[in-house]
């Protein structure tokens, strides 16, 4: 069974790296979601939270052919919209190529099969 969201089972020999890309709306641009969440936290009694900005978080798995420059390009052209967003790229721990290990708690189940 092919796992969803994966190009193919990577070569067992190759190293697969996990990369996190965080994309946030530029500070001068309105973040209506952050605003709504802050208000909800206030109503819920969490007045110690002073500010909230919401952005996107991407978990990537890349093989060793992907350089840092590639990652910057991917982030800046596809994952983020440079007109309104900024981003950070973080390489996490290198992980083994076993698909099961790459995703935390990825238990095969009915859903995995439906994910087409």
């Amino acid at each position, binding site marked *: 069974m092919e796992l969803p969201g994966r190009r193919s089972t990577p070569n067992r020999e190759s190293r697969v790296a996990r990369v996190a890309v965080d994309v946030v*709306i530029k500070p001068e*641009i*309105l973040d*209506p979601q952050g*605003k709504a969440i802050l208000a909800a936290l206030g109503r819920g009694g969490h007045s110690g939270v002073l500010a909230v900005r919401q952005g996107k978080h991407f978990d990537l798995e890349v093989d060793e052919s992907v350089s840092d420059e590639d990652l910057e390009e991917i982030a800046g052209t596809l994952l983020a*919209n440079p*007109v*309104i967003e900024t981003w950070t790229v973080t390489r996490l721990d290198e992980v083994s190529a076993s698909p099961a290990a790459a995703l935390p708690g990825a238990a095969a189940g009915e859903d995995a099969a439906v994910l087409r």
Partner: protein
Amino acid sequence: MTGSTGTVPGTGTAPVQDTVAQAARTPDARQPFRELGLKDDEYERIREILGRRPSDAELAMYSVMWSEHCSYKSSKVHLRYFGETTTEAMRSVMLAGIGENAGVVDIGDGWAVTFKVESHNHPSYVEPYQGAATGVGGIVRDILAMGARPVAVMDQLRFGPADAPDSQRVVPGVVAGVGGYGNSLGLPNIGGEVVFDPSYAGNPLVNAACIGVLRAADMYTAHASGAGNKVILYGSRTGLDGIGGVSVLASESFASGSGGDRKKLPSVQVGDPFAEKVLIECTLEIFRAGIVVGIQDLGGAGLSCATSELAAAGDGGMAVDLDRVPLRASGMTAAEILSSESQERMCAVVEPDKVDAFLAVCAKWEVEADVIGEVTDTGRLVITHHGEVVVDVPPRTVAHWGPVYERPVERPDFQDALRDNGSGSLARPAAGELPALILRMAASPNLCSRAWITDQYDRYVRGNTVLAQPADAGIVRVSDDVPGGPGDPDRPLSRRGLAMSTDCNSRYTLLDPYTGAQLALAEAYRNVATTGAVPLAVTDCLNFGSPEDPGVMWQFQQAVRGLADGCVELGIPVTGGNVSFYNQTGATAILPTPVVGVLGVIDDVTRRTVPGIGHDTGESLLLLGT
């Protein structure tokens, strides 16, 4: 009210701000008026009006308000033709016409309708989703400002070739933006257009229309009268977004730059449809409570426009304290606060004893509201910031004294060749080729199903949509949203409905702008009439290239005349519209695209004609006309 509330923070690091006093002291200080889009003679004119150089804040105000987008400086002399040709009979249905936020038409039974189309072309090229979304947001606020409940939207789209690489970015983004905003407002999308043509590749058109319904007696106009009345800014906070949007983006070029030395800011506005939905309900409740004198939406040119137009339409002056404007960013200059195009804001004029009631309605809807000034009898618009006067101008000079240009008009040389290049020389398909040809045509981007687009738009919400896609005109039942709520037994459902269609074939318009505009009018008129509705009034959105090109001005002049003459012929008035110039890539203008919207009324929506042929066997097929 005097500007005594704020003082310049004594940090010593705060930038020295240009004030009116400073402007008087330093008459020769150089100002970046050209970067703000003002011509030399326009700048001179401002100095003449003020008897001194403008302060930075004044310069920002004049430059946005005198931009093509806000002042109609190139189109004004031509648009007058609409007024000149409107007869008394045509005028008789109009409660408000050109010049208001949107035209208002009497539809009988005490109901009135306001409707308008507007463009948001350039922002939608830069950032398709947000550009299109805020385009919808802007036109909806225009309608709301008239005291009407917005009841439906439509969108008119023009893109480059469907298979062009940039279309993959622009088309889905624009459609998602129109849907994302309109759907979240709970406004049914009842129709529109999509056309693909290479001339729009670097300059897509995103026009949006909105229809609103009000009781004729409850119409509001934007004016600030009555010295002592309070000016209240309510809605979202004012931030740095969209600064320079009007003077730069919506006029001369895509190049950005706000003129000051503030680092470059993106000239995009980000919409918050949720804030707008709440703003709509809050504003309608304010109208219902009768606690407002006049109201104005904040669109292009933000507070510059709202304060100067409200004051100019009133009977005195206005004093505004920018320290009372709730901001999203610290350290904003007066010029920035005045030019910000932050979305989802409105400005209201309220009698002092109604202010508390006004603020209570805002609090109920969790809408921020602040008194930022008051109406005065000075005849001047005086704006203070940090305790100093930064603007002191006659409001009309900002709002209405923009330059008026008689741009050169010249029929292009290519026009004859274009006209003579008829279809006569084209090969005719043999009879046997027709089936394949029809299939090819049906599959072409300009003729194929629009379901990919219309499936992303909510056409059902509010439960009054009687016709929408694939009909040629949309129909909404006049709202039953009246006291007592929907289906209130004391208020039986109205059977009255509104029909609207917008059309434009810009290839026809290129061949002959005069006739092209008339064909657009005729098509929209037919589309409304064939639903069973009676056409009543017209709005338009005139999308053209650079007005500095005499050939484009000729197209524009011809289209206006054609449309106006056509309206006389049909006996229905143009009640308002919008002009969008500078739609071109380099020296190449888009096809002239005068989008025409016709509004009609149907007395009994149950009698509307449903589109399509052959609902029942045995029906006859008749061909009418020539």
